[in-house]
């Protein structure tokens, strides 16, 4: 029944029997007639859908009121999970192309799993974060392909315009007092004891403005929590930085590569004079095995940040696609010597 169906879903293949049972407990059936929307872009996310039958089309609106289809999804698909992970707004509209049925996990019911910090909740979260990272790398490949087709659509700084300052240095000074740390996003979620224990496992790192924290393509060695200041994550493509995101206090940096064990997808430079807490890969793996409340909250922050990056890249691609088409039209127009006139 549902248990058997859950085992079909690729996203949940790593879950054990207990985790699948807990997921089953929070899932409620839904049906949807052809032509109706599961959810609309811009709505506040309230849960995710597991599709058992039917087909759903996922499309995104763009400036100028155009729409592009992102995916056509069938049996075994998970739809709308991003909103569940960061409680953001729906980034696309999902519409039933034919009559659909499946299961809905509401945010409220998922919270029930989450607040218990159960092994099941941890397992589900790690499945999600792995999925998000995989999707993120796919979007980066798509962005690179768009830039390859039309290099002028990449508006970033030239690599030669960003001479790296002296590199990061291990700070011999103390971190801010724990009363200060306790006010920073993500660290705010930890209890006093959890925070003190978490901080003890990290070391401080000062990174001056313009300094390189890690290169794109580097092997994953560390992840960092921004304590003060900000870093820029960029794709390096040909001779340009394509800025993807700016991450301020409370953000986790460098974790994408640690999650899937592949090279760093981004270059990371300090955009401001920045103080970080740094964790070696071994500490990250230890937390992944740990499943303590601290580990759970840390990976919640990691998941939320990863979803944030996914949203950012989606935004960039939403701008790049029409830009590429515009450039192609201009180029074609120039070749044809056709006077379009002013619009």
């Amino acid at each position, binding site marked *: 029944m549902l248990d058997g169906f859950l085992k079909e879903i690729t996203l949940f293949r790593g879950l054990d029997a207990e985790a699948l049972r807990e997921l089953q407990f929070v899932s409620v059936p839904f049906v949807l007639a052809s032509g109706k929307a599961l959810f609309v872009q*811009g709505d506040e996310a309230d849960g995710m859908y597991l599709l058992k039958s039917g087909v759903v089309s996922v499309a995104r609106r763009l400036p100028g009121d155009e729409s592009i289809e992102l995916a056509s999804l069938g049996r075994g698909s998970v739809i709308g999970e991003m909103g569940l992970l960061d409680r953001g707004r729906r980034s696309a509209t999902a519409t039933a192309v034919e009559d659909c049925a499946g299961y809905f996990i509401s945010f409220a019911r998922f919270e029930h799993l989450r607040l218990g910090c159960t092994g099941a909740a941890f397992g589900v979260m790690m499945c999600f974060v792995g999925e998000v990272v995989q999707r993120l790398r796919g979007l980066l490949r798509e962005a690179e392909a768009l830039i390859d087709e039309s290099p002028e659509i990449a508006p970033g700084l030239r690599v030669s315009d960003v001479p790296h300052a002296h590199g990061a240095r291990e700070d011999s000074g103390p971190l801010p007092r724990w009363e200060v740390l306790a006010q920073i996003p993500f660290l705010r979620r930890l209890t006093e004891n959890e925070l003190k224990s978490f901080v003890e496992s990290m070391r401080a790192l000062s990174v001056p403005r313009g300094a390189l924290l890690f290169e794109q393509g580097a092997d994953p060695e560390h992840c960092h929590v921004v304590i003060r200041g900000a870093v820029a994550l960029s794709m390096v493509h040909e001779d340009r930085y394509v800025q993807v995101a700016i991450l301020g206090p409370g953000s986790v940096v460098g974790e994408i590569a640690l999650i899937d064990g592949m090279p760093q997808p981004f270059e990371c430079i300090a955009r401001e004079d920045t103080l970080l807490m740094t964790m070696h890969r071994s500490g990250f793996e230890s937390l992944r095995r740990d499943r303590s409340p601290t580990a759970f909250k840390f990976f919640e922050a990691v998941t939320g940040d990863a979803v944030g990056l996914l949203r950012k890249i989606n935004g960039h691609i939403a701008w790049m696609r029409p830009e590429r088409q515009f450039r192609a039209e201009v180029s074609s127009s120039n070749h044809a010597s056709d006077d379009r006139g002013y619009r």
Partner: protein
Amino acid sequence: MLPTTAGIDSMCRVLIYQGKPVGADCLLYRPDNSLIKQTHSSLMLDMFNLAGFGMTAWDPSSHEPSAPFRYHSPHIPIFDRNLKSLAEKLTVSTMIAHVRGVPYNEKVTIGEQNAHPFQFSGIPLAMAHNGDLHDFPLMRYSLLPYIKPGLAAQIRGNTDSEWIYATLLSRFDDPAEYHDSLATISAVAETFSIIHDVRRKHGISLCSPTNLFLSDGKILVAARYTFDFGCYDPEDPASVRRSTHKFLSLWYTTGSEYGLHDGEWKMIGGAVDADSVIIASEPLTRDTSTWLEVPEYSACYLERIDNRRHFRVKYLPILHI
């Protein structure tokens, strides 16, 4: 949830438009998150903006089209019948409009002279500012060496915004001339560099958002920028909590026509053929699906290509590595 700037002391709301002529009330009043509504129920701020309103707008069909309509008032715009009446009659091809937000205390000066956008006499370029330079009274007069005397003499108010404007204008050899978008962006970058230096000389290094909106009726430039983003007072836990850890927002939408379409206020006509743009502190509608964020630390502008206006982004350099 949309990102908010909860916790900061004051923050204005601004919009800039350029494109096909459109009724001013279609930007100021009628959308469900219009600029005037952001006075009291902003989607992305947990505060009121009660310190006045200003607008500078160009109508190519008006008498002396290069000279804009200007309206500034220290009053709360939602109660301003004159503004509503004016907005219902005015058709604009370019507009900068601003609702002013200030801390709720007696130290603030409310007055017409502090209303944005600023436009000095004889100068075509107007500017509005969304943000707050931390400890500005400490550094104000250190900007004087960077401001042409004739422009300094025109400063009437006491806002950081007007001083930023005067410093920016002074980057041009002749501020009374028209300048293209890229020259204006260079002036913006140079102004930020000067402000950064002056802040450092005074030991000021706390987070200070500085979004700018500029137009002379011909060009449109907006910048999304913050000095020392993420930098709070490490000795004061309360200041950490008060500090915003989200980059001050700036959004845009493009298309070939803006208006009420299928019951929704939006741009239509696609992004490829877009020649109209709205750039604003936050989207003008609760449905944000046709809006995108302007990248952090960047300037955006309209570029003329093949007689079409086209939205472009230019990243600003990292200061003083």
